[in-house]
């Protein structure tokens, strides 16, 4: 096989039922059309997963994915994604994490690890130096993420290896369980940890010394320098992300009435300063943390030394965490939030979904839909630190009321009934994160409705960077409406086209295998599609320009969309929580509501070349993208609307 510059060149396929390990060459036909990482995984899962399978059954597959830029000098290259069918949504799932796992997997000689089947007994996988072995994990089952990591590293005798593992929540099949790596980095969204738990695989551990071959080293180095120089000019990073981490966003989001508070009641919390980045920096911050090869270093390393919420040194909390376990629960105790973050990491819980589920329970209790008879005597009072900590424990262990919440808010609401469905903040079953769409920008509402994985601010891209933040993302020459329209405007101002283009920029990071953050900014201070194309061309020796890269992104999002269509999702699933259609009650954005989601959806589908009635990509669009086989398969399905 010819050398594939930028790639390790191999796929590790592990059948846990048969205890069989295969080393397969990368498929060049997929690389040509999808680059790698999420794009490659989407194609594999489209081809290999039968529609309608149980995500927690042995028929589901889970892919650890890297891209060609992963593990290179490219800024933000300490990334990997985990792709599967989500047990939370029943739809497409991809979940990104930073740290060191992705690079080390490539250094071990593999671009992808595909996990199939189900082990009879708990196991873990040790991938190193072009080899892999399935090992017994009986003694690890039941251990926390932090404990598991320490024990495995000692057992393999390589303290520099990277451990991606599940905690007790994944073992208990909590539908929003994470796969944690390097202890505190999370592939959090959509429940990949539950899929690992269902397969009885506790951890994937990796390390190696294989390098990454670069086709044109000098050109690649120059392209990387150009990208790094651009990032140095990014003042928002300099002023906020670098000194404070992502929780540096708290005060600004509150000032703009965009800080989710009291579970959809408002976007404004008078006590927000208590858990802001500025406050953390003066109190519990130990030091900053960065992922592999990152010049930004958005991670925080914190510790609460004493008191009721004493917490050992660990990484976090992020913006999402302090809001979901803070203002969303009307809670302002930063020490307790840090403790809650630590517990979520230890048990392997998504802090976004966990915070959302806890606030949902508080809302139900407040409205009398849940009583102490349902909670085992526990009073679910807004803002109570002990309640939040207690519920995290119960969710992770599926004890009492925690067993209900571990199903995610969509299933929990359906079980509670009595109107609880109207309260639950989710899209497609994925819990809504910490960007209040009525306050941030109406494009955020459109993003939540149409993101293939459900309510997400980051996949495929943070669209608020455009109409909330006034940034181009390097997309003006791709037709991004500029200057951006009013953030509160909905239709007739190009939001559909804007959201589509921003999503395509985001999928560039997902196919090349890098972090999203360097792609946020203006032409001069972020990594634009042009800069990604320049680095990728020099790295792989496969000449590609920014427009071709965006076209590949379009192919990938169409395939992800078709994955969901094949699972039975249609336009009715592209929606937002009912509460987002009601006005915000207080603060700077008082009165703001999403009033015309249907109009925005029409504009988005039109920009995408999708059928407005069903939301399904047209045959013409799929064939234009080289996806005729996908169109044929959908057309041949009995229950899928004809295309």
């Amino acid at each position, binding site marked *: 096989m010819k050398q594939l510059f930028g790639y390790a060149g191999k796929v590790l396929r592990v059948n846990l039922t048969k205890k069989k390990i295969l080393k397969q060459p990368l498929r060049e036909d997929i690389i040509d059309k999808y680059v790698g990482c999420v794009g490659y995984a989407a194609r594999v899962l489209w081809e290999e997963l039968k529609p309608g399978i149980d995500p927690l059954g042995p028929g589901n597959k889970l892919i650890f994915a890297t891209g060609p830029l992963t593990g290179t000098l490219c800024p933000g290259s300490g990334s990997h994604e985990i792709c599967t069918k989500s047990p939370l949504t029943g739809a497409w799932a991809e979940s990104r994490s930073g740290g060191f796992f992705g690079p080390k997997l490539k250094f071990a000689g593999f671009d992808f690890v595909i996990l199939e089947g189900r082990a009879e007994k708990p196991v873990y996988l040790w991938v190193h130096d072009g080899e892999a072995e399935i090992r017994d994990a009986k003694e690890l089952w039941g251990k926390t993420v932090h404990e598991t990591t320490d024990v495995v590293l000692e057992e393999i005798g390589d303290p520099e290896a990277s451990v991606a593992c599940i905690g007790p929540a994944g073992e208990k099949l909590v539908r929003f369980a994470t796969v944690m790596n390097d202890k505190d980095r999370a592939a959090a969204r959509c429940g990949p940890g539950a899929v690992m738990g269902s397969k009885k695989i506790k951890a994937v551990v990796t390390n190696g010394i294989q390098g990454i071959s670069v086709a044109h080293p000098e050109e690649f180095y120059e392209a990387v320098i150009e990208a790094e120089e651009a990032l140095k000019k990014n003042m*928002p990073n300099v002023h906020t*992300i670098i000194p404070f981490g*992502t929780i540096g*966003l708290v005060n600004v989001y509150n*000032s703009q009435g965009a800080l989710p508070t009291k579970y959809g009641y408002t976007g404004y919390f008078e006590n927000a*300063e208590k858990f*802001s980045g*500025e406050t953390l920096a003066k109190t519990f911050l130990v030091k900053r943390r960065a992922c592999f090869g990152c010049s930004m270093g958005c991670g925080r390393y914190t510790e609460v030394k004493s008191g009721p919420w004493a917490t050992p040194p660990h990484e976090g909390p992020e913006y999402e965490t302090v809001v979901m376990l803070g203002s969303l629960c009307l809670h302002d105790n930063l020490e307790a939030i840090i403790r809650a973050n630590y517990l979520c990491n230890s048990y392997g819980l998504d802090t976004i979904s966990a915070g959302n589920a806890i606030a949902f329970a508080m809302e139900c209790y407040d409205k009398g839909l849940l009583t102490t008879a349902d909670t085992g005597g526990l009073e679910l009072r807004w803002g109570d630190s002990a309640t939040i900590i207690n519920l995290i424990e119960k969710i992770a262990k599926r004890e009492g009321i925690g067993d209900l919440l571990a199903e995610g808010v969509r299933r929990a609401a359906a079980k509670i009934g009595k109107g609880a469905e109207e309260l639950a903040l989710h899209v497609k079953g994925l819990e809504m994160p910490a960007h209040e769409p009525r306050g941030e920008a109406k494009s955020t509402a459109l993003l939540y409705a149409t993101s293939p994985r459900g309510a997400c601010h980051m996949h495929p891209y943070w669209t608020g960077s455009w109409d909330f933040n006034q*940034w181009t993302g390097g997309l003006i020459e791709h037709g991004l409406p500029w200057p951006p329209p009013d953030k*509160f405007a909905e239709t007739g101002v190009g939001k559909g086209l804007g959201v589509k283009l921003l999503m395509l920029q985001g999928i560039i990071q997902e196919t090349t295998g890098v972090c999203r953050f360097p792609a946020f900014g203006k032409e001069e201070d972020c990594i634009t599609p042009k800069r990604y194309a320049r680095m990728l061309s020099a790295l792989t020796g496969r000449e590609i320009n920014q427009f071709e890269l965006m076209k590949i992104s379009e192919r990938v999002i169409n395939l992800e969309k078709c994955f969901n269509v094949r699972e039975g999702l249609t336009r009715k699933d592209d929606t937002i929580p009912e509460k987002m259609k009601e006005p915000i009650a207080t603060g700077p954005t008082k009165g703001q509501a999403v009033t015309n989601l249907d109009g925005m959806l029409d504009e988005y589908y039109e920009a995408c070349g999708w059928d407005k009635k069903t939301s399904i990509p047209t045959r013409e669009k799929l064939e234009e993208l080289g996806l005729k086989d996908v169109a044929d398969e959908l057309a041949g399905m009995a229950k899928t609307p004809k295309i």
Partner: protein
Amino acid sequence: MITLVKVTVHYGHPLTEITGKAREDVTVKKGSTVLSLLKNLATKYGDAFKDQVFLNYGRDQVKEGTIISLNAKYISNETENIKVEDNDFIGIFRAVGGG
């Protein structure tokens, strides 16, 4: 008789550091413009504040990259013409990324 109105001013970093707070209630004369409010704050907090908020020495133009919002609407180029009302929210911040 002078009528006074109360507005709540929110700061983003680095103004949180310069002012020592993330939020404060400010009382101004009814009919005051946002620009006059900004100038009052500049007088109160000094050169570091001016450097962050104003483009020019005359202090009548907002610096590029600094966003002024009134009830979450961006008004950086209109501060001279817009008057504050009782219970308004003013935001002074630089764009922030990620999250």
